């Protein structure tokens, strides 16, 4: 039997689900806001916003 593990998106609070135990350094994407989140601790699960390329839209 598998257990679904959940955490909350740091940006929008949407639930993030893991079908298997997450690994440190794993990057997941929030389905609601698209944030890329890095697992920085597994027990308890801690997520942090992964570094991203900033987009200046040509300005």
């Amino acid at each position, binding site marked *: 039997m598998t257990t679904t593990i959940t955490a909350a998106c740091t*940006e929008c*609070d*949407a639930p993030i689900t893991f079908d298997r135990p997450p690994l440190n350094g794993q990057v997941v994407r929030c389905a*609601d*806001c*698209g*944030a*890329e989140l890095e697992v920085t601790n597994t027990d308890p699960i801690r997520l942090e916003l992964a570094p991203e390329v900033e987009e200046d839209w040509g300005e």
Partner: protein
Amino acid sequence: MTKTVSIVGGSGYTGGELLRLLLDHPGVTMRAVTSRSNAGDPIHRKHPNLRGRSDLVFTSPDEVEACDVLFLCMPHGQAATEIDKWAGLADLVIDLSADFRLRSPDAYKDWYGSEHPAPARLAEAAYGLPELERERIAKATLISGVGCNATAMNLALLPLARAGLIDRVIADIKVGSSEAGAEPSASSHHPERSRAVRSYALTGHRHAAEVHQALGEFTLDVSVTAIEMVRGVLCTAHVIPTEPVAMKDLWKLYRGAYANEPFVRLVNERQGLHRLPDPAVLGGSNYADVGFGVDERTGRIVALGAIDNLMKGAAGSAVQSMNVALGLEETTGLTFPGLHPA
């Protein structure tokens, strides 16, 4: 058994959109579409995208017979003077003009500058935006159309208003040329309109009345600018809140308001090209894309609403309302997602 539907005043852009939607709608059968100046012409003469899709020809409004649903797409002011006649022909009348949008005769006079010709009908009409008045629409025999700019504002601001978070709003609206309708004018002449970035209603826009009616009283300032676009409205509403809010609070409010709405999508992505609502991808679609952000330094909230003015801002909402009133699946005939690239 399908319902019979007719359109009075079907030669304009909203009439054309209604035809496009209703000809493919599995729950209705088109009976007549009128245009006094185009009577006898096939509908594709005014709506070339419908060539080969129907044998309908425009008829005179005097020839309209009884039907189940009657859409009125006449110039503002005309439906109100003729409403008794049309209401006698159909169980359900949906008027796409501004004539029955405001419930209060006093508000109508304030915003439109004259007494309403049929004030007793105002309280009876449901406002045709299911996200606001689904239960009233379901029981209505008269449904008003929506203002396109009002719809972009209402859907952008609804979650904030319901939470009592709005102290003041400054709404900057960008619009496409089809908002001006199918009748040409000096301002729509191609050399004048093309590439224009033309502000034209800095204060006193009538659609503010629809926002107040829908969302309540707060200070609302609206300014409109016509841009290089045929279809589309983008509302950028700058909101001074009654109390500080965080981005997670906004997500919770907007999710709560729209989780069960089939045509409102939250567009607020941290990745990719299309991070926020853009009417360019909504052409022909009944979707309203809504986004938001908060400036943690000043507390200002920015709420965005993007729609196709001819669809969610007119014909699409009207058909959605018809579906609700007839007890049909609300999305019937309305699932086209728009084009990309547009």
